[in-house]
């Protein structure tokens, strides 16, 4: 069997597995966020928090919950790293410097998992398992909570009430993320990933002597790293490291975990707004972009344009033998079209166009299918923009899901789609203009610029992957990337929740003959076009200087 055919079959198997899980998981999540019942363990948690889970919140209250919880999380994670040197169970590793500790705290709380540190030499068991992995769960749960609040905004009328943040946070963690992670982690260990609390120990070598290895709760972190679209690896090599991702099966399984919740949430959305077809139209948009990107990626990587790859006879630099070009391409697209940022192969050594595809995937706003929660709310914002454009064409006030898209709604949606590109382009321009940041580049020319553009694209979109030749452990990059991650995460959430509040207050408008049918293939086509055109117009000049220049030259 040729590697190309094997790659295509893996993609088909992935689609089949996701399709099987789509209905049960999507319906289950809809029940989780709609059920009036509380589990006993949840009641204990609410008691400990001191929150009343049945108290409905309007959008400012919901937002305050999100921000308070996240602010506490950043502070807690920062302090945990700063005192690592005195914490037991930390392998005697020293404390993390302030700028790197800030960057890492911002990174994990914002669901980005950008890593300016080397996991195996810097972070001990307590910080990894009790700090970073915890944020893998709760930052994902926060993302889903905000998405669910927006969906309630569409589903509810004349109220302004969006649910209870604490209940959504706790339910997402306890009923969705933890159970699936337990199964995922055990599957990963059964297939060879490590899971222990060993200290640094000597392992004998074939030619004599020994190597020092770090143990850790890797499989348990790996499962939620993918499921929560987080992406922060236990080791520096992330999912390329054999202890994290030991074989072809675990590779496909990890991609499955990455895509599982973001796709299924479209079913949850359809259920909660009372029309499954609306969910399918959103799903179809996501699937179209995802498959299109994957096909393009496989084409350019198997084609392997580039001087070094021509000499080598294949684009295997930065790729593992057991995954090959096919398994690496599928992973790279899945990780950049979601907010994951885990890597099983190093994007910096992809072909020029391949690197460009990973960047463009993030620049779409990570909505196909996007991060846990953030993918759905990002896509719904694009849907609002799409109905607005369609409304302009025929000259009538646009509606979506029975809600009028008026001035306030479109302003909030416009702010949402402007904030991330503004962060990416302004920070990247500043880094290029200043004298010292460019010293961090490993490659020169177009690819050197790409390293910086990639870094801010990844940070502001909360992805976390990198053109890792860039030495990002400097005060400039730790600070600006940390800010880009926080602003790129929480400002959009402000706009989404304000929008949700405004939608929930409206009374529904009945559909007429003039209403755009947003549950039809025509709308999916319009939505795909809107996404590609808006992103293309925003980023084309920057992409032309980086990956396009590199790809066209080879």
């Amino acid at each position: 069997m040729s590697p190309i055919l094997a790659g295509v079959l893996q993609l088909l198997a992935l689609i089949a597995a996701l399709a099987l899980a789509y209905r049960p998981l999507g319906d289950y999540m809809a029940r989780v966020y709609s059920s009036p019942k509380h589990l006993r363990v949840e009641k204990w948690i609410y008691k400990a928090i001191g929150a009343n889970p049945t108290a409905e919140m309007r959008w400012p209250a919901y937002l305050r919950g999100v921000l308070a919880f996240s602010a506490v999380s950043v502070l807690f994670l920062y302090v945990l790293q700063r005192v690592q040197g005195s914490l037991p169970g930390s392998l005697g590793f020293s404390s993390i410097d302030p700028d790197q500790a800030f960057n890492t705290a911002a990174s994990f709380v914002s669901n980005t998992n950008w890593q300016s540190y080397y996991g195996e030499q810097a972070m001990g068991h307590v910080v990894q398992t009790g700090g970073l992995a915890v944020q893998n769960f709760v930052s994902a749960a926060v993302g889903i909570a905000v998405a669910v609040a927006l969906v309630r905004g569409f589903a509810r009328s004349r109220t302004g009430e969006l649910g209870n943040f604490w209940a959504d946070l706790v339910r997402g963690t306890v009923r969705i993320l933890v159970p699936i992670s337990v199964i995922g982690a055990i599957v990963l260990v059964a297939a060879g990933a490590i899971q222990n609390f060993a200290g640094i120990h000597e392992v004998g070598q074939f030619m004599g002597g020994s190597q020092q290895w770090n143990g850790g709760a890797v499989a348990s972190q790996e499962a939620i790293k993918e499921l929560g679209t987080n992406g922060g690896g236990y080791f520096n090599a992330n999912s390329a490291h054999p202890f994290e991702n030991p074989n072809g099966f675990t590779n496909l399984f990890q991609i499955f975990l990455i895509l599982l919740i973001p796709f299924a949430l479209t079913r949850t959305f359809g259920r909660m707004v009372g029309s499954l077809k609306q969910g399918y139209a959103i799903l179809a948009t996501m699937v179209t972009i995802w498959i299109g990107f994957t096909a393009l990626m496989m084409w350019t990587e198997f084609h392997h344009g580039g001087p070094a790859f021509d000499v080598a006879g294949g684009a295997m630099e930065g790729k593992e033998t057991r995954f090959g070009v096919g398994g690496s391409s599928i992973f790279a697209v899945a990780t950049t079209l979601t907010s994951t940022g885990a890597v099983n192969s190093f994007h910096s050594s992809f072909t020029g166009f391949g690197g460009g595809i990973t960047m463009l995937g993030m620049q779409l706003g990570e909505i196909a299918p996007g991060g846990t929660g953030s993918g759905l709310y990002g896509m719904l914002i694009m849907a609002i923009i799409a109905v607005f454009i369609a409304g302009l064409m025929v000259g009538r006030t646009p509606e979506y899901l029975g809600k009028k898209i008026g001035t306030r709604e479109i302003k909030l949606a416009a702010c949402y789609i402007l904030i991330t590109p503004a962060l990416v382009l302004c920070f990247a321009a500043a880094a290029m203009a200043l004298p010292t940041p460019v010293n961090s580049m490993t490659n020169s020319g177009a690819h050197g610029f790409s390293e910086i553009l990639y870094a801010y694209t990844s940070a502001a979109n909360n992805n976390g992957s990198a053109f890792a030749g860039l030495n990002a452990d400097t005060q400039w990059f730790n600070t600006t990337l940390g800010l880009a991650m926080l602003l790129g995460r929480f400002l959009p959430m402000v706009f989404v929740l304000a929008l949700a509040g405004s939608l929930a207050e409206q009374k529904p408008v009945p559909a007429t003959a003039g209403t755009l049918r947003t549950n039809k293939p025509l709308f999916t086509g319009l939505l795909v076009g809107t996404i590609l055109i808006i992103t293309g117009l925003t980023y084309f000049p920057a992409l032309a200087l980086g990956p396009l220049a590199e790809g066209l030259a080879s």
Partner: protein
Amino acid sequence: MNNSLSNTTRLIGAGLRALLVLTVITGVLYPLAVTGVAQALFNNKANGSEIKSGGRVVGSELIGQTYNLPLKKGEEAPAPDLKWFQPRPSNGLGTNSVNTQYKLILSGATNRSGDNPELIKWVTDAKAAVVNDNSTPTYKVKSSEVPADAVTSSGSGLDPDISPAYAKLQVHRVAEKNNLDVKQVEKLVEQNTDGRTLGFIGEPTVNVLNLNIALKELTEK
């Protein structure tokens, strides 16, 4: 909107308590439960799939290692020991720069782009070396026969595998250096080749450590 100080304090308090409770669940109970199951049911795998040969641990099945001669004076890098099957290059590996009481290996890739002059040189040099090392008086390796994995560094730098094509390329050299029959060594490679899972998942691989252990057993017979 009520943003008074006491309200903010109350909210921060609730956030902190929520974080602590969820830390207990996801950062303590969850990893401990998974570790318990993993250690009970998959003990060897959970601890790194170590392999023994000749009564001692010789590494992990999952982690690539080098098969080099001792470093000689005046050499920058040790030369490969051509008696053994050789792994892929690992130009992206590093050594630890903090917590230097340990000697850790940092996994990683080169992150060089396809048009990077250094990478072009590495690949070109590696290709010449593979052709040179594997050509024997009776068997000449052509440059076009060298597979891509033989001259490129992996993502982790710890790739335990090589492609079956690269393993086959090394058979004649290994047979000659160990005074073995080419057929015997070919058979070893075949026995240590893993196909794709279910026929289509992943790529076919040859685990270098397993192959060298089998080779060692053969030479000691």
